[in-house]
């Protein structure tokens, strides 16, 4: 597929072209950045919802029901589901499509599974690019599911506009642990499996945590706790999904009304710039070193005690990059 053809096809929502470009960004192909340049202008308009939470909290089931709710409004939905790659083999078992089986034949739903490929932060390195491609395809809503999270997996807050943190009543300790950072992580806290024992006290403790951390600022969004009952096994209706949907829409309305959406966009671009810079600098430097035998020289000089890693990097960077500030 020629690059221009690929761009045209993606903008016309062609699934194969989009899927192929997603693989190319995952594989960090040179050509991919060229194509990304051409579709970038057609991105940045979708509603981006992040869903994070520990494994077993029911993220996938909630997403399944959210897809259904958005499809009722005839919105096109993209889903990016990230699972961990094996640190040993680099392989991954991506099982999220099973949960979304109901939409396996719906042309208005595009699901993409991603292995984290060693990238930390709860997403894959290419997740933000894949979200951009889904936007370029014309998906109205893109839902991003992080891999079962600990507390460090919060990269999602740089991409998503509305961030859902999914908890269950059984996770008392986890809730204690995140209390402090709760305002930073979540716009909506979904207490799933709210039919389980301890749900009420859990809701109370979450709400008190929210209010304890609340800044006395006027235009601030106060995170809300939304109870739901979604199970991966009972395929019937999900209680609380309409409430969750309404809260998402209210949060979106808040972002647009207060123009906080601009801050969110800016944060996302800053994150992407950072990633691209890091990769490109690395690539440029390594490409420059390749075949010169310099790398081995540097290592040997460090071993011999004639040099140290910090000085080596200074020297290399001053060769490849100019140190002045941009005008």
């Amino acid at each position, binding site marked *: 597929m020629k690059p221009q053809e690929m761009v045209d096809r993606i903008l016309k929502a062609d699934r194969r072209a989009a899927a192929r470009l997603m693989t190319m960004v995952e594989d960090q192909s040179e050509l991919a950045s060229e194509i990304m340049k051409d579709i970038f202008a057609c991105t940045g308009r979708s509603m981006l919802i992040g869903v994070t939470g520990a494994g077993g909290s029911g993220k996938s089931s909630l997403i399944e029901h959210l897809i259904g709710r958005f499809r009722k409004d005839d919105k096109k939905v993209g889903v990016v589901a990230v699972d961990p790659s094996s640190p040993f083999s680099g392989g991954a*078992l991506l*099982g999220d499509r*099973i*949960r979304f*089986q109901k939409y396996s034949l719906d042309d208005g739903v595009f699901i993409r599974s991603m292995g984290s490929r060693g990238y930390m932060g709860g997403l894959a390195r290419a997740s933000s690019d894949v979200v951009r491609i889904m936007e370029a395809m014309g998906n109205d809503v893109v839902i991003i599911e992080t891999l079962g999270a600990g507390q460090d997996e919060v990269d999602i807050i740089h991409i998503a506009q509305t961030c859902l943190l999914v908890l269950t009543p059984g996770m008392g300790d986890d809730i204690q642990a995140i209390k402090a950072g709760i305002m930073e992580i979540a716009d909506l806290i979904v207490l799933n499996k709210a039919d389980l024992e301890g749900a009420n006290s859990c809701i109370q403790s979450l709400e008190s945590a929210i209010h304890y951390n609340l800044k006395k600022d006027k235009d601030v969004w106060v995170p809300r706790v939304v109870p739901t009952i979604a199970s*991966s*096994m*009972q*395929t*019937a209706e999900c209680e609380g999904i309409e409430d969750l949907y309404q809260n998402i829409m209210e949060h979106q309305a808040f972002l647009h009304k207060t123009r906080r959406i601009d801050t969110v966009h800016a944060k996302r671009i800053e994150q992407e710039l950072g990633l691209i810079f890091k990769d490109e600098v690395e690539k440029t430097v390594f490409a420059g070193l390749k075949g010169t035998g310099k790398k081995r020289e540097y290592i040997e000089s460090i071993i011999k005690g004639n040099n140290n890693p910090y000085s080596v990097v200074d020297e290399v960077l001053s060769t490849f990059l100019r140190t002045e500030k941009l005008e």
Partner: protein
Amino acid sequence: MGLKPKSINEQNPDKHIEPVRNMSGLEIKPLYGPEDIQSLSYEADIGRPGEFPYVRGVYPYMYRERVWTIRQLGSLGPPDKANLRIRQLVEMGATGVSICLDMPTIMGRDSDDPMAEGEVGRCGGVAIDTLDDMRALLEGIDLETISINFVSNSQSAIILALFCVLAEERGVPLSKLRGTMQNDILKEYQAQKSYYFPPSPSLRLTMDTIAFCHDNLPLFNPISISGYHLASAGATPLQELAFTLANAFTYVREGINAGMAVDAFAPRLSFFFKVHNDFFENVAKFRAARRIWARTMKDTFKAKDPASWRFRVHTQTSGSSLTAQQMENNIVRTTIQALSAVIAGTQSLHTNSFDEALSIPTPLSERIALRTQQIIAHESAVASTIDPLAGSYFVEALTNEMEAEALRIIQAIEDNGGVVACIENGYFQKEIAESAFAYQQAVQNGERIIVGLNAYAEGEEGKIELREVDPDFEKEKVAVLKQFKSNRDPSALEAAGKALREACRTGENVMPPLLSGVKAGMSLGEAVRHMRSVFGSYREKAIF
């Protein structure tokens, strides 16, 4: 007494003997002696056959009185063809037959369901949609003497209704019907994965059929609590033992909670085990199962009737141990497995055909499978002595160890909220998947040798005659079904459907409305749809 032989390693400390583990992961020593069974009391822990705790067998004379039931599979494709097969097996000396269902029937769909397309009458099973099919299937079979084993689970209540209505038509009193309904729904969620509804309503349907049989079919086993499928899905023999018993205790508890007296239904609970390649592990598994069952029924559930303490078991040789490579070797594997089942004291036995790894058995392979049992019964003389391995240091020690480990697992399941909770939180699926993976890895890396597969392999295989499935059968079956469906009284059918849904809602036993339903011509797929409209459906999470 006092004489303690040295173990092999003690005799020559410099000699290194590689440690060996059985399929359950228990370490097997090169030699066992009196020290390994020191704490064993013959009276308390073993006892005589037919006596508590039944380790040596559930009947006092075992095969000296009556040889095990030789039960072979009699179903294939259309009901009338399956009927010919059943008659043939009966003529050849089978005293019981097993009826397998085809995939659409297993999944609760009629032959004319769009999802059934291409799968009707395949997989060695028979398509049962309506009363007409049950009539054709059992035409000319004496229901009072031949014991019929329905390999039926989610659909058991409906199959039972069809079976009872047929008996009524033929003038056979329900009280004379013999046979077994597999009806073990819990293992469907754990292993076989053919369920229609969430676990709780499914369990309730099973309890409805048990209650109905308890009142009306005293000679019929309403459930065969099955480890076989757990083992086929990858459970080790130890897991098979522990999970099966945990499931069984769940049914017992449900029955008691439903208001039945334990001694009223426990004597009709029967079991279904697999025998794999490890000969002594098989024997120890059966002996341990009998002891755990007897003791738990007596001590925990306070059963008073000795019949409630007896662990009666049907056995099948291992289909998953068969290889497609050098297929004739499967005859030998099946023989060794069958022999272990007999020495372990099974009540009935199914031997697999050697070509099952490839396809539906042929008449030749089926005959060899049947004859294997007859040779064991009449030529090998192993049936002459009851529990011949009792007192063996090794077998008694292994029995103890399997028992102790199984009890530990059963307790862990209890501690995690019981069987249903462990289904829902994925415990069983995870345990089984891990064992399956470990087994496959051991085969891959040659740690576990499978002759003809990862050792002693040869190039091309010889050609084997295989049985064809008639491709036109599906079309005919669908046409006949459509005809049947168009000849029913819609108002009677609607009334029956309403009554069935009502029973599902209120918790009344579903059997009476099902009986009226199938009499009015309600098909299996229709009955499932009625029930699903009340119970909802279920989907498991993927666990590796």
